[in-house]
Structure formats: C-alpha cells, structure tokens
C-alpha cells in the first residue's frame, strides 16, 4: 500500500473517531432541553461528557492537521471553499466549549439558561453542517482547473447535502440518547432509553435513504458492503436499545456511525474532492498529496503515537465508567 493510500485511510479513521466520539457529545447537547427537566438533570447530562468532550474534540483538530500535512491541496481547497459552513461550525464549537466550562460558574437561572442555549445551538449547528459538508465532498463541488472553489454558498445546499445534514443530526441524536441511557441512572436513564428507541426508527429511515442515494452518486464494492453493514449495525443497536441492553445499543450506534463514515470514504477513494465542472479540477489522493518524504515522517509519528493516545484516552473512559444520576450532583 502506498503512503498516499495509508494517509487517506488515516484521515478517514480520524474523522470516523471524531464522529463517533463527538457524535454522542453533540447528541447530549441537542438533548439537553429534551431530557433535562431541571437544573440538576441538565447537570447530570452535561457531566456524562464533562471529563471527555475536550479530548474528543482533539480528534477534529488532528484530522484537520493530518489533512493539512498529508493533503495540503485538499485542506486548502476544502477549507476555503466551504468557508461559511466552517465559520458557523467554528462559532458553534467556541460557544459550546465555553458553555460547558462556564454554565455552572454563576448561580443565576438566567445565566444558566443562556449557556444551555449555547450548548444546544452549539451542538445542533455542527451536527447538521458536518453532514452537509461530507455530502458535498462526496457529490463534488464546482472546482476550476486550479482546484479553486468557484461556487457560492447555495451550491452547497442541494437536497442530497441537506439529507446528509439530516442524517448526521439524526444519527448523533440517537447515538447521544443511547449514550445517556448507558451513562445515567434513574429517571433520565429510562427516558433516554425510551427516546433512543423512538428516535431510532426515524434515524434508520433517513440514514438508509442517504446511504442509498450516496451509492447512486458514486459506489464501489467496498462502499456497498460498508453501507449494508452500517444499516445492519444501526438496526442491531436499535434492537438492543429496545430491550435495554445499553452497552450493545451503544456499540451498535457507534459501529453504524463508523461504517457510515467509512462508506463515504470508500465511495470517494481514490478521489478526495471531485469537481463538478472541469474534471481536471478534481483532487485525488495523489495530486493533493504531500511529498513521500513528508508522508514517511508523518507515518512514523502516527505509528508511534496513535497507540499511546488510544491507550490513555481509553483509560479515561475506564476511569469515568460509572453511571451518574441526580444524587451524584453536588449542591454547589
């Protein structure tokens, strides 16, 4: 396997990890007004992801950095082309991250309400826009022969992309509800479990429709298999959620997200950003890549450090494995 393929896979793995991990963070944020009936309940929800959300977000920073280092053309074209969606994602992530840290720093209800709104909007906006962005990557965007984006904002908002946005939102909502059922006790656990089942049916329909549409745009044998796997994993996860096997339900939605992201990357390969105008504008894993020397160094760094990162991040989840409920929330 050549280095560009390895780095295509690594970028795919980083985004997969990001969507699995921050997927449930976004889900928890979007469910805050739904499942959190009072301040203590909302604090339970937030504290299920309290120790981990920041580490989860580093997957995005690493994915962005890996894209920049391994495929500078892809990074440059994508980030300048998807300008306004990325701006909105950045603003959302700023508001949301600060909100987690600051919401409990003052006792006033109005203060908390504002930060709760920031958490909700800051989770909803990226959940939608990541789907819109990845649908556009797959479908292709108007690029000229110099690989410059020549479309406008409206070129990014076609029905397929909007379905992509709906799909990520629905998946993250279900994933978040399943995660909360796994991590909480009492009333919240019950309601999260029930909500996961109700959300799941709609999510399955939307996700299957999106993956099927994806395969009509571009497909490979691997993509078809992965898409089928994603649908099966989601259904298995929902079946487990119905009988309240929460660990299996979470495994199901996590694997479904992983395989759905893998479907997109598999359908895309070896292209990284297709041009809908001039075929010469299409970016591939080859023409967007850095030099073999850079890729070789980066590969060594990734080989050494990725297992270490996975080990200590996994250990964090072990340390904070206990469920929490309203009884665990301190008075102050």
């Amino acid at each position, binding site marked *: 396997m050549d280095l560009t393929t390895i780095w295509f896979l690594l970028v795919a793995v980083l985004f997969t990890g990001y969507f699995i991990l921050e997927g449930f963070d976004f889900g928890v944020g979007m469910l805050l007004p739904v499942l959190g009936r009072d301040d203590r309940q909302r604090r339970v929800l937030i504290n299920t992801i309290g*120790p981990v959300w920041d580490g989860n977000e580093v997957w995005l920073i690493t994915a962005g950095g890996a894209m920049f*280092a391994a495929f*500078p053309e892809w*990074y440059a074209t994508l980030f*300048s082309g998807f300008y306004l969606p990325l701006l909105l994602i950045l*603003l959302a992530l700023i508001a949301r991250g*600060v909100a987690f840290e600051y919401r409990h720093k003052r006792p006033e209800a109005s203060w908390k309400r504002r930060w709760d709104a920031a958490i909700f909007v800051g989770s909803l906006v990226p959940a939608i826009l990541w789907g819109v962005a990845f649908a556009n990557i797959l479908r292709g965007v108007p690029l000229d022969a110099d690989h410059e984006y020549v479309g406008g904002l409206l070129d990014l908002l076609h029905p397929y992309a909007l379905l992509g946005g709906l799909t990520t939102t629905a998946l993250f909502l279900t994933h978040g509800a399943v995660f909360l059922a796994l991590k909480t006790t009492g009333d919240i656990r019950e309601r999260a479990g029930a909500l996961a089942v109700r959300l799941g049916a709609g999510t399955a329909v939307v996700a299957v429709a999106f993956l099927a549409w994806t395969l009509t745009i571009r497909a490979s044998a691997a993509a078809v298999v992965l898409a089928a796997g994603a649908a099966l994993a989601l259904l298995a996860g929902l079946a487990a959620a119905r009988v309240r096997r929460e660990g299996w339900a979470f495994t199901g939605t996590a694997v479904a997200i992983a395989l759905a992201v893998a479907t997109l990357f598999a359908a895309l390969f070896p292209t990284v950003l297709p041009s809908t105008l001039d075929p010469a504008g299409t970016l591939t894993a080859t023409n967007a890549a850095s030099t073999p*020397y850079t890729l070789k160094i980066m590969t060594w760094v990734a080989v050494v450090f990725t297992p270490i990162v996975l080990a200590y991040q996994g250990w964090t989840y072990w340390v904070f494995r206990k469920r929490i409920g309203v009884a665990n*929330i301190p008075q102050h």
Partner: protein
Amino acid sequence: MQSWGFQVDALDVARWQFGVTTVYHFLFVPLTIGLSVLVAILQTLWHRTGNERYLKLTKFYGKLFLINFAMGVVTGIVQEFQFGMNWSDYSRFVGDIFGAPLAIEALVAFFLESTFIGLWIFGWDRLPRRLHLASIWAAAIGTNLSAYFILAANSFMQNPVGFRINPDSGRAELTDFVAVLTNKVALITFPHTLAGSFLVAGSLVLTVGLWHVMRNRDSADTGAYRFATKFGAWVVMVSTAAVLITGDIQGKIMTQVQPMKMAAAEGLYTTESPASFSVLTIGSLDGSRELFAIKIPHLLSYLGTGDPNGTVHGINDLQAQYASQYGPGSYTPIIPVTYWSFRMMIGFGLAAAAIALLVLWSQRKGRTPTSRWLLRAGLVLPVLPLLANSFGWIFTEMGRQPWIVFGEMLTRNGVSRSVSLAEVLTSFTAFTLIYATLAVIEFKLLVRYARAGVPELDPSPAHDDDTDDAERPLAFAY
C-alpha cells in the same frame, strides 16, 4: 468598497482577522502555559508536605486556570482552520512542511493536554493521589510541548530551512524535517515565549495573592496568600531574567536572518558602525529627519552583533539590496509599528518586573505591605506582561512583512483567491463580536473567582467512608 475613500480588499481583512484572532488567542495561551506548571508545582508541594495551604492554593489557582483554559482551547481551533480558510494559497505553498508540525502538535500534545486536564478536573476522587498529581503534570507537559511545535511552524515562516522549491509546482517541499524542528529561530523563540508566558502566570499568582494579603490581614488563609504572593513574585523575577537573556540571543539571531526586522525595530535608516540604541526617537517616517532622540551609543551594535563596534545595516541599504535580489517593490515593514511594538514589548515587561520587585521588598522579613499605591500597581500587574506578549507577537509578525514566508512568499500571494471580501468581512465581524463578548464574560468570571479566595476544604476524605458510591456526590461537576 471605495466609499470610505480608500480601498479595502479581502487581503486586508484577512490580515486584520489573523492579527485579531491570533493576539486574542495569545491572551489565553501564556496563562495556560505558565499556570499549568505553577498549579502542578503547588499540587506537588501539597503532595510532598501534606500542608493543606498548598492544596487550597492548588484548587484556587486551578479554578482560575480552568476559566482561562476553556478560552484558549476554543480560540485555538480557529487558528488551525484559518490557514485553510483565509490563506489557502499559503497553505498550498507550504503545506508539505507547515502541516506536519501542526498535525504532530495535535497528536502528540493536544491529546495529552486535553485528556489529562479532563482527568485532573474530574479525577479528585476517582484517581489515586499520585496519579491525579501526574495528570496535571501530563497536561502541563502537553501544553508546553504544543508551544514547541507551533513555534517550529512559525519559525519556518521567519527563517525557512530544510526545504527546496519544486521547480515544476513552484511549491516548497520538505527535505530535512530535523532542520525544521531545530531551526535556530525555533530553538530560541521557544524559551523566550515560555519565559514570557511564565511572566504572565507569575504576575497573576502574585496579584491575586497580594490583593488578599492586603484586604484580609487576619484571615486564617493569610499565610497561604503570603506564600502565593512571594511565589508569584519570584516566578516573575526569574522569568524576567530568562526573557532578557533569550531576547538578547534572539535579537542577534534575528539580525542575521532578518536584518530588516531589526533595523525596523530601531528605525535605523542608514547603516551604522558603531550603531547606537534609540531609547526614544520621534522623527519623520522616512527617516530623513530626527526631531527628538535619546540614544545610547554602541548599544545597538552590541545587541545586534555582540560587538560594540559591529556594523548594523540600515533600512535604506537593505531595501536596495532586497529590490535587486527579489525584484522591484517595497520590502520594508511599517516602521512606526515595528519601532513602537518593540519598545512596548520591552517596556511593559520591565515594568512588570519592577512591580514584582517592589512587592517582594514590601514583604521583606514578614512585613505586611500597606501602601495603596502598591496595591494599585499590583492590580494592573498581570495586564503588563500580557501587553508585552501581544506586542512581541505584533513586532515579530509585522516586522516580517511584506513576507508571509521570509524571502519565499509575499503575504499578498498567500491569501485565498476563492474567498470574497463579503465572506471574509462576515467572518472577521463574527469573530470580533463573539470574542469581545467572551472577553467581558471571562474577565468578570476571573475577577469573581479571584475575589472569592481559596476554598474551604471538604472535611470528609473521599475514599474511606461508608456512603454508597452510587449516592456520593462527585468531587467536581460542571
């Protein structure tokens, strides 16, 4: 947009956005770098001595650290995305070299920092004491490591090394990664930046401690605040020494690699040997007339070259040299900006050290300071090194202009061609508004928690009581 009487284009706004977002980000970074280590030291003191005073200070300054840390994290993501969004042609040109330290920074440093900070915040009752202490150290190491990689990336822009220009693509390609990581500019900028960061963190520790010492003289925690005040003051003194030494070396290196920047720092138009250092000069912008000047003979020669009679090249000669080397055009940065930012960096830094020295003097042999003027000076103290840091970066980046990568790419050639003026104006406005709002909120919270003082310690030790684990409140919760 001609209506203002001058032309604003996407390039100008992209540059302003980079300036504003970077200076803003770097208001939080120095505190994160410095305070992470200082809090880790306080917790280590508690671990070693068992003295609860240090535990209280750990929790107290830890809280201030976290209020600041959140801002550093969220404004940092903007920095990584901004290269691609506003500077896509720059990203294409240097991606082969510049992307690697950014990716390594995320993988090696940010994961370490953010994972272990989570463990530290929430782990007070979940981790054994030693492991909990190790968590804050791991986070502090991650933070300081991240500074190295990002400064190595920036140093490539200051002094490009370890690369070649591919004649077919016209792009810079990495040939020697070790050379990029051991760039002499990076090796000296790293300790200089760290020292500047500890100057900020030490100042904050001092200020908050001093305020409590002077406000509540007979409180049970006065001893803790006295310790914090002295601890902060010593950090400031040592950091100032480190800033001066590293700054001196950096000045000599910069005189070699970017003589124009150092000439612009001095407003030195004509080559001089020996050259005198201008403490303050007011004159015409083109250097043709000096209206008023205070100068120290030979000092500039010594600072730039290490030899009191060394030759320091002037702006006019360098401009002529670059024009013949790179083609016609201006290669001179905006002199008032470089001249004044250089002086403000040094002046604000030295003012901070002077105040710290006064505070130390006021507490000699166990005395309690009483001067209202000292308290006032103490309260503005943390702002001074923050300004010094900001002006240091403004000097470094503005002094490199018109280059984005010195000698290789002009800033105007690095901007995104596909991004319209309206788009970049939207983003500049949005960031400025959200940043301004958050700055007010953050500052008020810092003041609120700084005034609240050290916490009362929970009398029941977490681990050896009979309470059912499922019912026990978390040691910390958002």
